[in-house]
Protein backbone atom coordinates (compact mmCIF):
# COMPACT_ATOMS: atom_id res chain seq x y z
CA UNK A 1 0.00 0.00 0.00
CA UNK A 2 1.32 3.42 -0.82
CA UNK A 3 1.65 5.49 2.34
CA UNK A 4 0.64 8.56 0.40
CA UNK A 5 -2.91 7.14 0.31
CA UNK A 6 -3.05 6.69 4.10
CA UNK A 7 -3.93 8.88 7.04
CA UNK A 8 -1.77 9.18 10.17
CA UNK A 9 -2.06 10.07 13.84
CA UNK A 10 0.49 11.92 15.94
CA UNK A 11 1.07 8.67 17.81
CA UNK A 12 2.23 6.98 14.60
CA UNK A 13 -0.79 4.82 13.72
CA UNK A 14 -1.86 4.75 10.08
CA UNK A 15 -5.42 4.32 8.82
CA UNK A 16 -6.71 3.08 5.49
CA UNK A 17 -10.44 3.72 5.25
CA UNK A 18 -12.75 1.87 2.89
CA UNK A 19 -16.40 2.62 3.46
CA UNK A 20 -16.86 2.32 7.19
CA UNK A 21 -13.98 -0.14 7.64
CA UNK A 22 -10.62 1.18 8.77
CA UNK A 23 -7.49 -0.94 8.48
CA UNK A 24 -4.86 0.25 10.94
CA UNK A 25 -1.16 -0.26 11.53
CA UNK A 26 1.91 1.60 12.69
CA UNK A 27 4.19 3.66 10.48
CA UNK A 28 7.64 2.70 9.18
CA UNK A 29 8.97 5.61 11.20
CA UNK A 30 7.53 4.22 14.45
CA UNK A 31 8.84 0.75 13.71
CA UNK A 32 12.29 2.23 13.18
CA UNK A 33 12.09 4.10 16.51
CA UNK A 34 11.16 0.97 18.39
CA UNK A 35 14.11 -0.95 16.90
CA UNK A 36 13.77 -4.70 17.34
CA UNK A 37 10.14 -5.52 18.07
CA UNK A 38 9.87 -8.71 20.09
CA UNK A 39 6.20 -8.96 20.96
CA UNK A 40 2.88 -7.58 19.91
CA UNK A 41 -0.18 -7.65 22.11
CA UNK A 42 -3.05 -7.50 19.62
CA UNK A 43 -6.41 -5.82 20.19
CA UNK A 44 -9.37 -8.06 21.08
CA UNK A 45 -11.89 -8.75 18.35
CA UNK A 46 -15.31 -7.47 19.36
CA UNK A 47 -13.95 -4.75 21.62
CA UNK A 48 -15.59 -1.37 21.23
CA UNK A 49 -12.94 1.31 21.25
CA UNK A 50 -12.76 5.07 21.36
CA UNK A 51 -10.26 7.20 19.50
CA UNK A 52 -7.09 7.66 21.58
CA UNK A 53 -7.73 4.60 23.74
CA UNK A 54 -4.90 2.10 24.17
CA UNK A 55 -5.89 -1.11 22.36
CA UNK A 56 -2.62 -3.01 22.27
CA UNK A 57 1.07 -2.96 23.03
CA UNK A 58 4.20 -3.17 20.95
CA UNK A 59 7.20 -4.40 22.85
CA UNK A 60 10.89 -4.14 22.04
CA UNK A 61 13.70 -5.38 24.27
CA UNK A 62 13.96 -2.18 26.27
CA UNK A 63 10.65 -0.40 25.69
CA UNK A 64 6.92 -0.89 25.36
CA UNK A 65 4.67 1.41 23.34
CA UNK A 66 0.93 1.58 23.37
CA UNK A 67 -1.09 1.17 20.23
CA UNK A 68 -3.88 3.75 20.25
CA UNK A 69 -7.17 3.52 18.42
CA UNK A 70 -7.05 6.17 15.67
CA UNK A 71 -10.85 6.19 15.32
CA UNK A 72 -13.99 5.19 17.25
CA UNK A 73 -15.54 1.83 16.43
CA UNK A 74 -15.45 -1.91 16.97
CA UNK A 75 -12.49 -4.22 16.36
CA UNK A 76 -13.70 -6.71 13.73
CA UNK A 77 -10.46 -8.45 12.75
CA UNK A 78 -6.84 -8.65 13.82
CA UNK A 79 -3.74 -9.79 11.96
CA UNK A 80 -2.97 -12.91 13.95
CA UNK A 81 0.16 -13.57 11.90
CA UNK A 82 1.81 -10.79 13.85
CA UNK A 83 1.75 -12.85 17.02
CA UNK A 84 4.56 -15.03 15.68
CA UNK A 85 5.99 -12.79 12.99
CA UNK A 86 6.69 -9.36 14.40
CA UNK A 87 9.16 -9.00 11.56
CA UNK A 88 6.20 -8.18 9.29
CA UNK A 89 5.91 -4.86 11.09
CA UNK A 90 9.34 -3.80 9.91
CA UNK A 91 9.41 -5.58 6.55
CA UNK A 92 6.01 -4.46 5.40
CA UNK A 93 4.56 -1.87 7.78
CA UNK A 94 1.88 -0.70 5.36
CA UNK A 95 0.83 -4.08 3.89
CA UNK A 96 1.48 -7.39 5.61
CA UNK A 97 2.14 -5.58 8.89
CA UNK A 98 -1.45 -4.31 9.23
CA UNK A 99 -2.64 -4.79 12.80
CA UNK A 100 -6.44 -4.57 12.98
CA UNK A 101 -9.62 -3.64 11.23
CA UNK A 102 -12.13 -1.36 12.91
CA UNK A 103 -15.77 -0.87 11.92
CA UNK A 104 -15.96 2.88 12.30
CA UNK A 105 -18.91 4.51 14.01
CA UNK A 106 -17.90 7.83 12.50
CA UNK A 107 -16.01 7.46 9.19
CA UNK A 108 -15.34 11.19 8.93
CA UNK A 109 -12.90 10.83 11.82
CA UNK A 110 -10.39 9.14 9.51
CA UNK A 111 -10.53 12.01 7.07
CA UNK A 112 -9.56 14.40 9.84
CA UNK A 113 -6.20 12.73 10.36
CA UNK A 114 -2.88 13.86 8.85
CA UNK A 115 -1.84 12.96 5.32
CA UNK A 116 1.62 11.45 4.74
CA UNK A 117 3.35 14.76 4.07
CA UNK A 118 1.92 16.35 7.18
CA UNK A 119 2.86 13.25 9.18
CA UNK A 120 6.44 13.34 7.88
CA UNK A 121 6.65 17.01 8.83
CA UNK A 122 5.29 16.10 12.29
CA UNK A 123 7.96 13.45 12.73
CA UNK A 124 10.84 15.70 11.79
CA UNK A 125 9.55 18.61 13.88
CA UNK A 126 9.13 16.50 17.02
CA UNK A 127 12.88 16.16 17.15
CA UNK A 128 13.28 12.56 16.18
Amino acid at each position, binding site marked *: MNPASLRFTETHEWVSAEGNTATIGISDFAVHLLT*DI*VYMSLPKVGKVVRKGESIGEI*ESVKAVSDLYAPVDGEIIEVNSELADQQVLLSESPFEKGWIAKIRMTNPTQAEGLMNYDAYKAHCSSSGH
Partner: protein
Amino acid sequence: MRNTTATRLLFEMSHPGRGTQIFPESDVPAAGSHIPPIPATMKADAPPALPEVAEPDIVRHFVNLSTLNMSVDSHFYPLGSCTMKYNPKRHERLARLHQAANSHPYQPESQIQGLLKVLFELQGMLAEISGLPAVSLHPAAGAQGELTALLTAAAWYRHKGEDRRRVLFPASAHGTNPASAALAGFECVQLSAGTGGFVDLDELKKEVDARTAVFMITNPNTLGLFEKDIRKISEILHDAGGLVYIDGANMNAILGKTRPGDFGGDMMHYNVHKTFTGPHGAGGPGAGPIAVRDFLADFLPSPIVTHDPSRDWYSLTTPKHSIGQVRTFFGNVGILLRGYFYIRTLGGKGLREASENAVMNANYLLSQLKDVLEVPHGDRCMHEFVASAKNLKTRTGVTAMDIAKRLLDYGYHAPTVYFPLVVEEAMMMEPTETESLETLDAFAQVIRNICQEPPELVRSAPHSTPVSRPDEVTAARKPVLCWSDCKS
Protein backbone atom coordinates in the same frame (compact mmCIF):
# COMPACT_ATOMS: atom_id res chain seq x y z
CA MET B 1 41.50 -22.55 33.27
CA ARG B 2 37.73 -22.58 33.05
CA ASN B 3 35.98 -25.82 33.91
CA THR B 4 33.11 -25.95 31.45
CA THR B 5 32.22 -29.54 32.35
CA ALA B 6 31.29 -28.45 35.84
CA THR B 7 29.11 -25.61 34.61
CA ARG B 8 26.84 -27.75 32.46
CA LEU B 9 23.26 -27.51 33.70
CA LEU B 10 22.44 -29.60 36.77
CA PHE B 11 19.91 -31.47 34.67
CA GLU B 12 22.62 -32.33 32.17
CA MET B 13 24.86 -33.61 34.96
CA SER B 14 22.10 -35.83 36.37
CA HIS B 15 22.56 -39.59 36.30
CA PRO B 16 19.95 -42.04 37.67
CA GLY B 17 20.86 -43.38 41.08
CA ARG B 18 23.29 -40.63 41.98
CA GLY B 19 22.73 -38.52 45.03
CA THR B 20 23.69 -38.01 48.60
CA GLN B 21 22.19 -39.49 51.73
CA ILE B 22 20.93 -36.50 53.65
CA PHE B 23 18.12 -37.95 55.75
CA PRO B 24 18.00 -40.97 58.07
CA GLU B 25 15.44 -43.76 57.96
CA SER B 26 12.26 -43.05 59.86
CA ASP B 27 12.48 -43.70 63.62
CA VAL B 28 8.72 -43.79 64.25
CA PRO B 29 6.28 -46.67 63.86
CA ALA B 30 3.50 -46.27 61.32
CA ALA B 31 0.36 -44.71 62.82
CA GLY B 32 -2.92 -46.59 62.81
CA SER B 33 -5.61 -46.06 60.20
CA HIS B 34 -7.73 -44.06 62.68
CA ILE B 35 -5.35 -41.21 61.82
CA PRO B 36 -6.86 -40.32 58.43
CA PRO B 37 -4.54 -41.49 55.62
CA ILE B 38 -3.95 -39.51 52.45
CA PRO B 39 -6.31 -40.76 49.73
CA ALA B 40 -4.68 -42.20 46.62
CA THR B 41 -6.26 -39.49 44.46
CA MET B 42 -4.14 -36.88 46.23
CA LYS B 43 -0.87 -38.75 46.12
CA ALA B 44 1.84 -38.24 43.53
CA ASP B 45 2.54 -41.10 41.14
CA ALA B 46 6.23 -40.33 41.41
CA PRO B 47 8.32 -37.62 43.04
CA PRO B 48 9.19 -34.56 40.91
CA ALA B 49 11.89 -35.26 38.33
CA LEU B 50 14.61 -33.30 40.11
CA PRO B 51 18.14 -34.02 38.89
CA GLU B 52 20.22 -36.71 40.57
CA VAL B 53 23.66 -35.24 41.10
CA ALA B 54 26.43 -36.29 43.46
CA GLU B 55 27.50 -33.80 46.12
CA PRO B 56 31.09 -33.38 44.82
CA ASP B 57 29.69 -32.45 41.40
CA ILE B 58 27.30 -29.98 43.00
CA VAL B 59 30.12 -28.26 44.86
CA ARG B 60 32.25 -27.99 41.75
CA HIS B 61 29.25 -26.75 39.77
CA PHE B 62 28.43 -23.82 42.02
CA VAL B 63 32.03 -22.92 42.81
CA ASN B 64 32.74 -22.67 39.10
CA LEU B 65 29.55 -20.71 38.49
CA SER B 66 30.54 -18.24 41.19
CA THR B 67 33.75 -17.46 39.31
CA LEU B 68 31.68 -16.23 36.35
CA ASN B 69 30.39 -13.32 38.46
CA MET B 70 31.69 -9.92 39.29
CA SER B 71 30.99 -8.99 42.90
CA VAL B 72 31.92 -6.39 45.49
CA ASP B 73 34.24 -8.92 47.08
CA SER B 74 36.16 -9.29 43.83
CA HIS B 75 35.72 -6.10 41.78
CA PHE B 76 35.06 -2.35 41.93
CA TYR B 77 31.33 -2.04 41.32
CA PRO B 78 30.41 1.65 40.77
CA LEU B 79 26.77 0.87 40.01
CA GLY B 80 24.94 4.16 40.52
CA SER B 81 21.88 4.19 42.76
CA CYS B 82 22.80 0.76 44.18
CA THR B 83 25.44 1.66 46.81
CA MET B 84 27.67 -1.35 46.25
CA LYS B 85 29.84 -0.83 49.31
CA TYR B 86 31.90 -3.37 51.20
CA ASN B 87 29.83 -6.00 53.01
CA PRO B 88 31.57 -6.61 56.36
CA LYS B 89 32.23 -10.27 57.06
CA ARG B 90 31.47 -9.84 60.75
CA HIS B 91 27.79 -9.31 59.90
CA GLU B 92 27.57 -12.73 58.31
CA ARG B 93 28.80 -14.49 61.41
CA LEU B 94 26.65 -12.41 63.78
CA ALA B 95 23.54 -13.11 61.69
CA ARG B 96 24.03 -16.82 62.38
CA LEU B 97 23.65 -16.42 66.16
CA HIS B 98 20.92 -18.65 67.49
CA GLN B 99 18.04 -16.23 68.02
CA ALA B 100 18.80 -14.45 64.77
CA ALA B 101 18.90 -17.54 62.58
CA ASN B 102 16.63 -20.07 64.24
CA SER B 103 13.68 -18.20 65.74
CA HIS B 104 10.30 -19.21 64.39
CA PRO B 105 7.92 -16.28 63.82
CA TYR B 106 5.35 -17.87 66.15
CA GLN B 107 7.91 -18.61 68.87
CA PRO B 108 6.93 -17.44 72.38
CA GLU B 109 8.09 -13.89 73.15
CA SER B 110 9.83 -15.12 76.27
CA GLN B 111 12.35 -17.02 74.15
CA ILE B 112 13.23 -14.12 71.83
CA GLN B 113 13.56 -11.13 74.14
CA GLY B 114 17.12 -10.53 72.95
CA LEU B 115 16.06 -10.49 69.32
CA LEU B 116 13.10 -8.20 70.02
CA LYS B 117 15.37 -5.87 72.00
CA VAL B 118 17.71 -5.54 69.03
CA LEU B 119 14.80 -4.91 66.64
CA PHE B 120 13.34 -2.35 69.05
CA GLU B 121 16.69 -0.56 69.17
CA LEU B 122 16.89 -0.62 65.39
CA GLN B 123 13.49 1.08 65.17
CA GLY B 124 14.87 3.85 67.38
CA MET B 125 18.08 4.16 65.35
CA LEU B 126 16.19 4.50 62.07
CA ALA B 127 13.94 7.13 63.66
CA GLU B 128 16.97 9.13 64.79
CA ILE B 129 18.77 8.86 61.44
CA SER B 130 15.66 9.96 59.50
CA GLY B 131 14.32 12.53 61.94
CA LEU B 132 10.97 10.76 61.61
CA PRO B 133 9.78 9.26 64.89
CA ALA B 134 7.68 6.23 63.93
CA VAL B 135 9.32 3.24 62.26
CA SER B 136 8.05 0.00 60.77
CA LEU B 137 10.64 -2.67 59.98
CA HIS B 138 8.02 -4.75 58.17
CA PRO B 139 8.46 -4.12 54.38
CA ALA B 140 10.52 -6.68 52.48
CA ALA B 141 12.34 -4.24 50.19
CA GLY B 142 12.49 -0.61 49.18
CA ALA B 143 9.74 -0.96 46.60
CA GLN B 144 7.48 -2.56 49.18
CA GLY B 145 8.40 0.24 51.59
CA GLU B 146 7.08 2.71 49.03
CA LEU B 147 3.85 0.80 48.61
CA THR B 148 3.45 0.45 52.38
CA ALA B 149 3.96 4.14 53.01
CA LEU B 150 1.47 5.06 50.28
CA LEU B 151 -1.13 2.70 51.76
CA THR B 152 -0.39 4.20 55.18
CA ALA B 153 -0.99 7.69 53.79
CA ALA B 154 -4.19 6.53 52.08
CA ALA B 155 -5.50 5.11 55.37
CA TRP B 156 -4.67 8.37 57.13
CA TYR B 157 -6.52 10.43 54.52
CA ARG B 158 -9.52 8.14 54.68
CA HIS B 159 -9.52 8.42 58.48
CA LYS B 160 -9.64 12.20 58.06
CA GLY B 161 -12.43 11.89 55.49
CA GLU B 162 -10.30 13.19 52.61
CA ASP B 163 -10.34 11.69 49.14
CA ARG B 164 -6.95 12.23 47.55
CA ARG B 165 -6.07 10.04 44.60
CA ARG B 166 -3.05 11.63 42.94
CA VAL B 167 0.61 10.80 43.48
CA LEU B 168 3.20 13.09 41.87
CA PHE B 169 6.84 12.39 41.07
CA PRO B 170 9.55 13.98 38.91
CA ALA B 171 10.63 12.46 35.60
CA SER B 172 13.94 11.44 37.15
CA ALA B 173 12.17 9.14 39.67
CA HIS B 174 13.00 5.48 40.05
CA GLY B 175 10.55 3.26 38.16
CA THR B 176 9.37 1.80 41.44
CA ASN B 177 7.76 5.12 42.45
CA PRO B 178 5.07 5.16 39.75
CA ALA B 179 4.80 1.36 39.86
CA SER B 180 4.12 1.40 43.61
CA ALA B 181 1.67 4.28 43.31
CA ALA B 182 -0.25 2.51 40.55
CA LEU B 183 -0.30 -0.76 42.49
CA ALA B 184 -1.68 1.06 45.53
CA GLY B 185 -4.50 2.40 43.35
CA PHE B 186 -3.34 5.99 42.90
CA GLU B 187 -3.35 8.07 39.74
CA CYS B 188 0.24 8.81 38.66
CA VAL B 189 1.28 12.31 37.63
CA GLN B 190 4.78 12.75 36.27
CA LEU B 191 6.38 16.18 36.36
CA SER B 192 8.84 17.31 33.71
CA ALA B 193 12.59 17.01 34.10
CA GLY B 194 12.92 20.57 35.43
CA THR B 195 15.89 22.83 34.82
CA GLY B 196 19.35 21.93 36.07
CA GLY B 197 18.04 18.60 37.25
CA PHE B 198 15.87 20.08 40.00
CA VAL B 199 12.12 20.04 40.53
CA ASP B 200 10.42 22.97 38.80
CA LEU B 201 8.60 24.77 41.60
CA ASP B 202 6.18 26.56 39.30
CA GLU B 203 5.13 23.33 37.69
CA LEU B 204 4.81 21.68 41.09
CA LYS B 205 2.60 24.52 42.35
CA LYS B 206 0.39 24.15 39.31
CA GLU B 207 -0.05 20.42 39.79
CA VAL B 208 -0.49 20.30 43.58
CA ASP B 209 -4.05 20.75 44.77
CA ALA B 210 -6.71 19.22 46.99
CA ARG B 211 -6.52 15.97 45.02
CA THR B 212 -2.83 15.52 45.72
CA ALA B 213 -2.02 12.78 48.19
CA VAL B 214 1.75 12.40 48.01
CA PHE B 215 4.75 13.84 46.22
CA MET B 216 7.46 11.19 45.91
CA ILE B 217 10.99 12.48 45.61
CA THR B 218 14.45 10.98 45.90
CA ASN B 219 16.82 13.28 47.77
CA PRO B 220 19.61 13.54 46.84
CA ASN B 221 17.91 12.98 43.52
CA THR B 222 18.85 10.41 40.90
CA LEU B 223 21.20 12.91 39.25
CA GLY B 224 23.20 12.95 42.48
CA LEU B 225 22.07 16.47 43.36
CA PHE B 226 20.55 17.65 46.61
CA GLU B 227 17.18 19.28 45.86
CA LYS B 228 18.09 22.81 46.89
CA ASP B 229 14.45 23.87 47.19
CA ILE B 230 13.39 20.87 49.23
CA ARG B 231 11.96 23.05 52.01
CA LYS B 232 9.86 25.02 49.52
CA ILE B 233 8.76 21.79 47.89
CA SER B 234 7.61 20.51 51.26
CA GLU B 235 5.79 23.75 52.01
CA ILE B 236 3.91 23.58 48.73
CA LEU B 237 2.77 20.07 49.56
CA HIS B 238 1.96 20.78 53.18
CA ASP B 239 0.06 23.97 52.36
CA ALA B 240 -2.16 21.91 50.09
CA GLY B 241 -2.63 19.23 52.74
CA GLY B 242 -0.40 16.72 50.93
CA LEU B 243 2.50 14.61 52.12
CA VAL B 244 6.13 14.38 51.00
CA TYR B 245 7.62 10.92 50.49
CA ILE B 246 11.39 10.59 50.46
CA ASP B 247 12.73 7.68 48.46
CA GLY B 248 15.69 6.77 50.66
CA ALA B 249 17.73 5.04 47.96
CA ASN B 250 20.37 7.74 48.26
CA MET B 251 20.64 7.97 52.04
CA ASN B 252 24.31 7.04 51.81
CA ALA B 253 24.99 10.65 50.86
CA ILE B 254 23.49 12.35 53.91
CA LEU B 255 23.83 10.18 57.02
CA GLY B 256 24.36 12.51 59.97
CA LYS B 257 24.50 15.53 57.65
CA THR B 258 20.80 16.18 57.19
CA ARG B 259 17.62 14.20 57.85
CA PRO B 260 14.48 13.71 55.76
CA GLY B 261 12.37 14.73 58.73
CA ASP B 262 14.35 17.97 59.01
CA PHE B 263 13.99 18.91 55.36
CA GLY B 264 10.26 18.38 55.20
CA GLY B 265 9.77 14.71 54.43
CA ASP B 266 6.77 13.04 56.06
CA MET B 267 7.54 9.44 55.12
CA MET B 268 10.53 7.57 53.76
CA HIS B 269 11.95 4.13 53.19
CA TYR B 270 15.44 2.89 53.78
CA ASN B 271 17.21 0.37 51.57
CA VAL B 272 19.04 -1.54 54.29
CA HIS B 273 20.95 -3.54 51.69
CA LYS B 274 22.32 -0.30 50.23
CA THR B 275 22.86 2.25 52.97
CA PHE B 276 23.50 -0.19 55.79
CA THR B 277 25.31 -2.72 53.63
CA GLY B 278 23.25 -5.84 53.95
CA PRO B 279 24.76 -7.69 51.01
CA HIS B 280 22.88 -7.42 47.72
CA GLY B 281 22.72 -11.18 47.38
CA ALA B 282 22.81 -11.14 43.56
CA GLY B 283 19.46 -9.35 43.61
CA GLY B 284 17.96 -9.56 47.05
CA PRO B 285 16.86 -10.13 49.70
CA GLY B 286 16.70 -6.54 50.82
CA ALA B 287 14.75 -4.86 53.58
CA GLY B 288 12.72 -1.67 53.21
CA PRO B 289 11.81 -0.29 56.63
CA ILE B 290 9.86 2.96 56.63
CA ALA B 291 9.91 5.96 58.95
CA VAL B 292 6.99 8.39 59.21
CA ARG B 293 5.78 11.41 61.14
CA ASP B 294 4.03 10.92 64.47
CA PHE B 295 0.53 11.51 63.08
CA LEU B 296 0.94 8.56 60.73
CA ALA B 297 2.21 6.17 63.41
CA ASP B 298 -1.19 4.67 64.20
CA PHE B 299 -1.62 3.62 60.57
CA LEU B 300 1.66 1.75 60.13
CA PRO B 301 1.57 -1.93 59.23
CA SER B 302 1.75 -4.52 61.95
CA PRO B 303 3.63 -5.74 63.85
CA ILE B 304 5.76 -3.13 65.66
CA VAL B 305 8.11 -3.95 68.54
CA THR B 306 7.17 -2.14 71.76
CA HIS B 307 8.92 -2.06 75.10
CA ASP B 308 7.34 -2.00 78.54
CA PRO B 309 10.03 -0.50 80.78
CA SER B 310 8.21 -1.48 83.97
CA ARG B 311 8.70 -5.16 83.17
CA ASP B 312 11.62 -4.66 80.79
CA TRP B 313 9.60 -6.69 78.30
CA TYR B 314 9.55 -6.50 74.53
CA SER B 315 6.49 -7.52 72.56
CA LEU B 316 4.88 -7.34 69.13
CA THR B 317 1.92 -5.00 68.81
CA THR B 318 -0.45 -3.74 66.16
CA PRO B 319 -0.87 0.04 65.74
CA LYS B 320 -4.39 1.32 66.48
CA HIS B 321 -5.50 1.97 62.88
CA SER B 322 -2.95 -0.31 61.23
CA ILE B 323 -3.25 -0.96 57.50
CA GLY B 324 -2.42 -4.59 58.38
CA GLN B 325 0.37 -6.68 56.97
CA VAL B 326 1.95 -6.28 53.54
CA ARG B 327 3.85 -9.57 53.84
CA THR B 328 3.90 -12.60 56.07
CA PHE B 329 5.47 -12.34 59.54
CA PHE B 330 7.61 -9.59 61.02
CA GLY B 331 10.02 -8.55 58.28
CA ASN B 332 13.33 -9.47 56.66
CA VAL B 333 14.98 -9.88 60.04
CA GLY B 334 18.17 -11.42 58.64
CA ILE B 335 18.84 -8.29 56.60
CA LEU B 336 17.60 -5.85 59.24
CA LEU B 337 20.07 -7.32 61.73
CA ARG B 338 22.98 -6.74 59.37
CA GLY B 339 21.89 -3.10 59.24
CA TYR B 340 21.80 -3.02 63.03
CA PHE B 341 25.30 -4.51 63.27
CA TYR B 342 26.56 -1.90 60.82
CA ILE B 343 25.01 1.03 62.69
CA ARG B 344 26.36 -0.33 65.98
CA THR B 345 29.84 -0.69 64.48
CA LEU B 346 29.94 2.84 63.06
CA GLY B 347 27.96 4.86 65.58
CA GLY B 348 26.82 8.39 64.74
CA LYS B 349 30.34 9.57 63.95
CA GLY B 350 31.09 6.64 61.69
CA LEU B 351 27.88 7.03 59.72
CA ARG B 352 28.65 10.69 59.13
CA GLU B 353 32.17 9.80 58.02
CA ALA B 354 30.81 7.16 55.69
CA SER B 355 28.62 9.74 53.95
CA GLU B 356 31.39 12.33 53.89
CA ASN B 357 33.75 9.91 52.23
CA ALA B 358 31.10 8.63 49.84
CA VAL B 359 30.52 12.22 48.70
CA MET B 360 34.23 12.96 48.55
CA ASN B 361 34.94 9.85 46.48
CA ALA B 362 32.14 10.68 44.05
CA ASN B 363 33.29 14.26 43.64
CA TYR B 364 36.86 13.10 43.16
CA LEU B 365 35.88 10.64 40.48
CA LEU B 366 33.79 13.34 38.83
CA SER B 367 36.80 15.68 38.84
CA GLN B 368 38.88 13.00 37.13
CA LEU B 369 36.29 12.23 34.46
CA LYS B 370 34.67 15.55 33.57
CA ASP B 371 37.26 16.28 30.90
CA VAL B 372 36.62 12.94 29.18
CA LEU B 373 32.88 12.54 29.53
CA GLU B 374 30.27 15.21 29.71
CA VAL B 375 28.68 15.72 33.15
CA PRO B 376 25.58 17.70 32.26
CA HIS B 377 24.62 18.73 35.80
CA GLY B 378 27.75 20.51 36.97
CA ASP B 379 30.97 19.63 38.68
CA ARG B 380 29.58 19.08 42.17
CA CYS B 381 27.59 16.06 43.24
CA MET B 382 26.58 14.19 46.34
CA HIS B 383 27.46 10.47 46.52
CA GLU B 384 26.96 9.80 42.80
CA PHE B 385 26.88 11.65 39.52
CA VAL B 386 25.55 11.11 36.04
CA ALA B 387 27.97 11.40 33.15
CA SER B 388 26.86 11.25 29.53
CA ALA B 389 28.42 9.57 26.52
CA LYS B 390 26.30 11.68 24.16
CA ASN B 391 29.18 13.63 22.64
CA LEU B 392 31.33 10.55 22.32
CA LYS B 393 28.48 8.79 20.59
CA THR B 394 28.05 11.63 18.12
CA ARG B 395 31.79 11.70 17.47
CA THR B 396 32.62 8.00 17.33
CA GLY B 397 29.42 6.00 17.61
CA VAL B 398 30.51 4.61 21.00
CA THR B 399 27.56 4.53 23.40
CA ALA B 400 27.22 4.42 27.18
CA MET B 401 26.47 0.73 26.85
CA ASP B 402 29.66 0.17 24.84
CA ILE B 403 31.77 1.82 27.53
CA ALA B 404 29.95 -0.25 30.15
CA LYS B 405 30.79 -3.45 28.28
CA ARG B 406 34.40 -2.44 27.64
CA LEU B 407 34.89 -1.71 31.37
CA LEU B 408 34.17 -5.38 32.06
CA ASP B 409 37.24 -6.28 29.99
CA TYR B 410 39.36 -4.18 32.32
CA GLY B 411 37.92 -5.86 35.42
CA TYR B 412 35.47 -3.18 36.51
CA HIS B 413 31.75 -3.58 36.86
CA ALA B 414 29.84 -1.14 34.69
CA PRO B 415 28.09 1.92 36.10
CA THR B 416 24.31 2.12 35.83
CA VAL B 417 23.55 3.03 32.24
CA TYR B 418 20.49 4.69 30.65
CA PHE B 419 19.15 5.83 34.02
CA PRO B 420 17.89 8.36 34.92
CA LEU B 421 15.87 8.66 31.76
CA VAL B 422 16.27 12.45 31.68
CA VAL B 423 19.94 12.24 30.62
CA GLU B 424 20.87 10.93 27.19
CA GLU B 425 23.48 8.15 27.16
CA ALA B 426 23.52 8.28 30.95
CA MET B 427 26.24 6.62 32.99
CA MET B 428 25.48 6.87 36.67
CA MET B 429 28.50 6.31 38.87
CA GLU B 430 28.51 5.73 42.61
CA PRO B 431 31.95 4.75 43.91
CA THR B 432 30.90 4.54 47.62
CA GLU B 433 33.15 5.34 50.55
CA THR B 434 34.79 1.92 50.74
CA GLU B 435 37.05 2.43 47.72
CA SER B 436 40.60 3.73 47.78
CA LEU B 437 42.14 6.62 45.89
CA GLU B 438 44.20 4.06 43.98
CA THR B 439 41.07 2.26 42.79
CA LEU B 440 39.39 5.50 41.72
CA ASP B 441 42.50 6.67 39.86
CA ALA B 442 42.88 3.37 38.06
CA PHE B 443 39.20 3.35 37.09
CA ALA B 444 39.35 6.92 35.77
CA GLN B 445 42.43 6.05 33.76
CA VAL B 446 40.65 3.08 32.21
CA ILE B 447 37.70 5.26 31.17
CA ARG B 448 40.13 7.72 29.62
CA ASN B 449 41.79 4.85 27.75
CA ILE B 450 38.50 3.48 26.52
CA CYS B 451 37.55 6.85 25.10
CA GLN B 452 40.77 6.78 23.08
CA GLU B 453 40.43 3.21 21.86
CA PRO B 454 39.37 2.37 18.31
CA PRO B 455 35.57 2.68 18.34
CA GLU B 456 35.01 -0.74 16.77
CA LEU B 457 36.99 -2.35 19.59
CA VAL B 458 34.75 -0.70 22.17
CA ARG B 459 31.55 -1.29 20.26
CA SER B 460 32.20 -5.01 20.10
CA ALA B 461 33.25 -5.32 23.77
CA PRO B 462 33.44 -7.23 25.99
CA HIS B 463 36.19 -9.46 24.64
CA SER B 464 37.49 -11.23 27.72
CA THR B 465 34.35 -12.16 29.66
CA PRO B 466 33.01 -15.74 29.81
CA VAL B 467 30.41 -14.81 27.18
CA SER B 468 30.01 -11.89 24.81
CA ARG B 469 26.88 -9.80 24.27
CA PRO B 470 23.76 -11.96 24.36
CA ASP B 471 21.10 -11.97 21.69
CA GLU B 472 18.36 -10.34 23.75
CA VAL B 473 16.01 -9.95 20.80
CA THR B 474 15.71 -13.69 20.18
CA ALA B 475 15.56 -14.25 23.94
CA ALA B 476 12.54 -11.98 24.19
CA ARG B 477 10.83 -13.20 21.00
CA LYS B 478 11.06 -16.87 21.86
CA PRO B 479 11.64 -17.05 25.59
CA VAL B 480 13.45 -20.17 26.87
CA LEU B 481 12.88 -19.96 30.60
CA CYS B 482 13.49 -23.45 31.87
CA TRP B 483 15.50 -26.53 31.06
CA SER B 484 12.63 -28.59 29.70
CA ASP B 485 11.94 -25.89 27.08
CA CYS B 486 15.25 -26.61 25.37
CA LYS B 487 14.72 -30.37 25.43
CA SER B 488 11.76 -30.08 23.13
